[in-house]
Each structure stands twice: as structure tokens, then as C-alpha cells.
């Protein structure tokens, strides 16, 4: 038995008509929904009527940043004293001594580096604000340079006592950044003088 399927081919006119209808419907969807939702353009008012403009607004507006506050004992802690950068050079005569300490509040931080032209004895120590007879030594030895970070465990003056153990003059260059309003300088065992620290970045 011979089978044959009969297919009907649309006429050219019908194809043109179908294409025009499709273009019209696509255009209508573009103008009434896509343009208001994607681009915020609402020429016929359907975006507002259907709430599509809200979609555009929520997409285009930046998300509000989440607020994270430093936690007690965490790695980030707010400092209340002004932030400063300081550098200075000291000359210590033969067998002389010099002491330079920054005034820091409890919890205030400091980064430092010092270099000496010859090895010197040093003692990184403190003097408490609430009891000037109380002191803690945190590092002591002989070196020609040191660098580090420090967080003051209590309010007071915190810094270095250097001793030149040679008959030659020694120069010490100290650079630091931190949260200190001032410092105190003691030379050859003297009473010490308060030293203003101005921010070198300004």
C-alpha cells in the first residue's frame, strides 16, 4: 500500500501576517513590561500600574552596607588619641645615656623602628601614670636596631633607655607612628622634659 502525507504549505501572505503579529506582540511586551522593569522607562504607564518600576528601583539602588562594630578584645580597636607619625635623631655622647618615652593611654598602639650607628644597650620599659615608681621592662638587651608593634597595657610613658657603652658618639634614629599626644626625654639621668609631638604627615 502506498502511503503519502499531505502537508499544507502556508502562503507567503499568511507568513507575512504571522510575522507582523509576532513583532507587534513582542513590541507590546517590550514596551509594557521589559522597558519599565529593566530600564525604568515606562512610556505607557504599565510599569507603574503593574509595579514593575519597583523591580528596576530595587536592582539599580546600591545595597546598604552592613554595619560591623569592633568587638571587645578583637583585632580591630578604636583609638581615641590623634594618630601621628614621628621621627627624630638622638646623639649620645661617649658612655652617655638617653631615655625617650611616648605618652600613651591604656590600649593605645604604636609601631616603631630605631637604628643606631653602633650597638647600644637598650631597655624598653614603662612608667605608669597612676604610680610613677611602678615600671615594667618588656625588652632589654644590646642591639643596633629594633622594630616592632606595641599596645600600651596601661596609661603612662612607654619607650627606650639607651646606653652608649663606647667612647665614640652614637646616633640613634627613631621612627614611629601611633596614638600619642607627647613624649618625654631624659638625658644622662636628668629629670626629663616633656616633648611635643607634631604629626609629620602635615
Amino acid at each position: 500500500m502506498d502511503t503519502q502525507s499531505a502537508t499544507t504549505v502556508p502562503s507567503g501572505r499568511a507568513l507575512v501576517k504571522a510575522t507582523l503579529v509576532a513583532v507587534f506582540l513582542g513590541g507590546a511586551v517590550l514596551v509594557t513590561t521589559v522597558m519599565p522593569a529593566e530600564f525604568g522607562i515606562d512610556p505607557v504607564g504599565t510599569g507603574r500600574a503593574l509595579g514593575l518600576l519597583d523591580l528596576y528601583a530595587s536592582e539599580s539602588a546600591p545595597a546598604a552596607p552592613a554595619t560591623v562594630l569592633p568587638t571587645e578584645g578583637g583585632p580591630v580597636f578604636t583609638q581615641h588619641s590623634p594618630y601621628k607619625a614621628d621621627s627624630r635623631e638622638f646623639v649620645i655622647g661617649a658612655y652617655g645615656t638617653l631615655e625617650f618615652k611616648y605618652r600613651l593611654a591604656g590600649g593605645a598602639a604604636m609601631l616603631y623602628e630605631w637604628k643606631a650607628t653602633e650597638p647600644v644597650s637598650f631597655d624598653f620599659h614603662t612608667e605608669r601614670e597612676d604610680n610613677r615608681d611602678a615600671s615594667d621592662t618588656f625588652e632589654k638587651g644590646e642591639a643596633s636596631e629594633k622594630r616592632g608593634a606595641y599596645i600600651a597595657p596601661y596609661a603612662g610613658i612607654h619607650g627606650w633607655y639607651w646606653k652608649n657603652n663606647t667612647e665614640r658618639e652614637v646616633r640613634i634614629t627613631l621612627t614611629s607612628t601611633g596614638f600619642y599626644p607627647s613624649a618625654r626625654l631624659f638625658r644622662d639621668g636628668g629629670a626629663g622634659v616633656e616633648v611635643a609631638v607634631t604629626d609629620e604627615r602635615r
Partner: protein
Amino acid sequence: MTQRIITLAVTAMVALGACQVFAHDEFRIIGTISAMKAAELEVKSRDGKMVKMKMDRETLVYRDNKKVDPAELKAGRHVVVDALGDSMTDLLAVEVRIIAALPK
């Protein structure tokens, strides 16, 4: 009895704590030995003051960066003394360096 032990323990802890916190100041005296007795060193400092210091078995004496016998400390020798104490009238010499000449 228990109360006495607790009292002693607390006293000892407070005393130890105080030793740690209330450290002596460090002094450096540069001058010439004016007198040397068994456990006392007297130095005339560069500014003319006489400073007496105690010495003990721990006191180290150096010359040319080498440790020498404390008997080397004789009147007329120039020295740099590092001492600990509460004031210039109450000092214990920790390190004494014999130097050739006083720095200017």
C-alpha cells in the same frame, strides 16, 4: 592555722608582686675612683659629686670589654658604673667598666 597560712601566702604574693612592679631606677655614673673598700666603691663624678655605691658578688667589672677581678678597681682609675637604686644615695653597682680616660 589555716588563717595564718592564708595570711602568709597573701603577704608573700603581695611582696613578690611589689618586687616585680616597683623596680629600682638605673643610674650611670662616670667618674674617677676616689676610694675602694671591701664592698663599697666611691666615685667622684665628672660634675664633682662624690657617689658611694655598694658592691656585691654579682657586681661585674670589665676592662677592654673583658671581665676582670674587682681588685682592679683602684683609686685614680676612671670608671663608668651602672648602678641600681632608688636615689644617688642608695646605689648598688651592677657593672663597672674601667676606661682609659674620662669622656669630654
